[in-house]
């Protein structure tokens, strides 16, 4: 117990909470020790559980113990398991605890910055608020029960760490939940809510954590797909995503058709394409900009809304006159700027073409 208290003081994230609950903790710690030190279930305690709570919940707690024992070796010993154990916030509604321990409605927020000790303090503090000794015992029991659950969830949280997408999604949620947690080192936690009658064994918890993961990714998708923000419900969201992917695929079909129609010989030889015809192409800008076929391009218009073209970085060489001209035209009509090929793309095609030097020569001839 002494060791535990040292551990509390050492961590010191929630010292104020700790100090206020120190007296209660020392009284309640023997019940926690059997969990922390991974001893076999204390025989003197179990009858109490059985006496105060119905059989079902007692059996459930036994199951939880087994799962706890299995999990713990992964953490390389008890101490490690304790120190790495994420803190959380446990909230009970008193009436539900009084009726049955399975019916508890607790929200578990895992957060690696908070030590287990403060959790225990919080749970005990909540238990203290109850008047009757029976409910207090139940609360203690449920605290022990949920501890194992948290253990199981923590492991899920660990393998979810790898996913960066999730972390992004988690960022926005942690900001709202920092009221009780003093400091947040990593926004890695899983919020799992067990409602009345829901199972609390490790399988259902895993399933729930999986669903959480999926919904987080769905949120990312929601941000990506335009017009998907207002839709609630998974089915509607999937509908929107399907439509979007289909529209993208159709646009590719359309564009490849268009390219096929425009290029009868499939000859995208960049040598001739740019070196010879580029100056003429630039010269024909003003007339081309007003061509009706350009304006009628549907996909084109759509894309003007959804994504503005990359800021034209200009050709990485001495074609300043072109650039100036194109910018001037771009200010009058967006379509020209869009039609102007992405110049940042083309310098990469150097192995294929020697158009840069050709173009340079041409420009030296024309403008100087």
């Amino acid at each position, binding site marked *: 117990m002494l060791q535990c208290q040292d551990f509390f003081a050492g961590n010191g994230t929630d010292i104020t909470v700790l100090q206020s609950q120190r007296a209660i903790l020392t009284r309640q710690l023997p019940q926690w020790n059997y969990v922390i030190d991974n001893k076999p279930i204390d025989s003197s305690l179990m009858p109490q559980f059985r006496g105060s709570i119905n059989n079902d919940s007692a059996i459930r707690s036994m199951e939880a113990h087994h799962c706890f024992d299995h999990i713990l070796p992964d953490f390389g010993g008890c101490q490690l398991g304790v120190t790495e154990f994420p803190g959380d916030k446990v909230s009970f509604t008193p009436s539900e605890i009084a009726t049955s321990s399975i019916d508890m409605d607790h929200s578990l927020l895992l957060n690696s910055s908070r030590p287990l000790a403060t959790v225990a303090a919080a749970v005990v503090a909540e238990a203290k608020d109850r008047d009757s000794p029976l409910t207090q015992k139940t609360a203690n029991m449920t605290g022990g029960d949920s501890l194992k659950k948290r253990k199981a969830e923590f492991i899920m949280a660990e393998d979810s760490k790898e996913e960066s*997408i999730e972390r992004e999604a988690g960022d926005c949620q942690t900001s709202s939940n920092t009221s009780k947690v003093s400091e947040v080192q990593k926004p890695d936690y899983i919020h799992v809510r067990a409602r009345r009658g829901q199972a609390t064994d490790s399988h259902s918890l895993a399933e729930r954590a*999986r669903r959480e*993961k*999926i919904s987080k*990714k*769905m949120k*990312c*998708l929601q941000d*990506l797909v335009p017009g998907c923000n207002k839709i609630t419900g*998974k*089915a509607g969201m*999937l*509908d929107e*995503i*399907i439509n*979007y*992917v289909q529209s*993208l*695929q159709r646009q*590719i*079909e359309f*564009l*490849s*058709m*268009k*390219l*096929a129609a*425009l*290029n*009868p*010989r*499939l*000859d*995208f030889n960049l040598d001739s*394409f740019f070196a010879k*015809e580029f100056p*003429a*192409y630039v010269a*024909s800008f003003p007339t*081309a900009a007003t*061509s009706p*076929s*350009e304006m009628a391009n549907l*996909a*084109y218009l759509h*894309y003007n809304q959804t*994504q503005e*073209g*990359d800021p034209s970085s200009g050709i990485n060489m001495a074609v300043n006159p072109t650039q100036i001209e194109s910018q001037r035209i771009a200010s009058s009509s967006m379509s020209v700027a*869009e*039609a*102007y*090929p*992405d110049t*940042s*793309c*083309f310098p*990469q*095609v150097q192995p*294929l073409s020697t158009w840069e030097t050709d173009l340079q020569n041409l420009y030296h001839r024309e403008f100087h």
Partner: protein
Amino acid sequence: MGPPSSIKKKFLKKWITGLQICSSSKENMSLFERKKAIKLSADVAMASARNATTCWSRALIANASKDDNNKILVDHILGTESERLKKASIGSVMCNNKRVRSKKILKKSCSFRRVKKMAPQMVLASSIAKRLVKKRTLVLKSLVPGGEAMDESSLIEETLDYIISLRAQIDVMRRLANASEHLNLK
């Protein structure tokens, strides 16, 4: 995923290579043949630009190289990496098939038990919503290449990546189309 512009550059480079191969292999193509060639080379180029780190790109390459006519093209676009990528793609497809089968068996055995347990009205309410989502998930799986073999969470992840890649592909294609359009108008 790297910066979008680098992906676009990579894609364009590979695509142009692919198109050159297409144009050299066949002289007189009809409009639809040309369109098919353009689309195929664009798709494969995009998949290889993503470096086969994602399931959809691997599946796309695997599907494209199934056809003997396209095999040469795919090989050329992939270039030096082709052996490695293909091996990876074939391996992934095979192991995916295995996983699907075992999943189906598991589902069968699980669903039987679950139906028994639930209360009747619960089944009605939740099963409707589930069916709606399931139907759409299946559609989405058919849209994303290689989606049939994915589970739900990886499907969503792949869809994210696929959408971003499609956007980049469309952007580059649109620019090229506009450029050639202007050339033709002149």
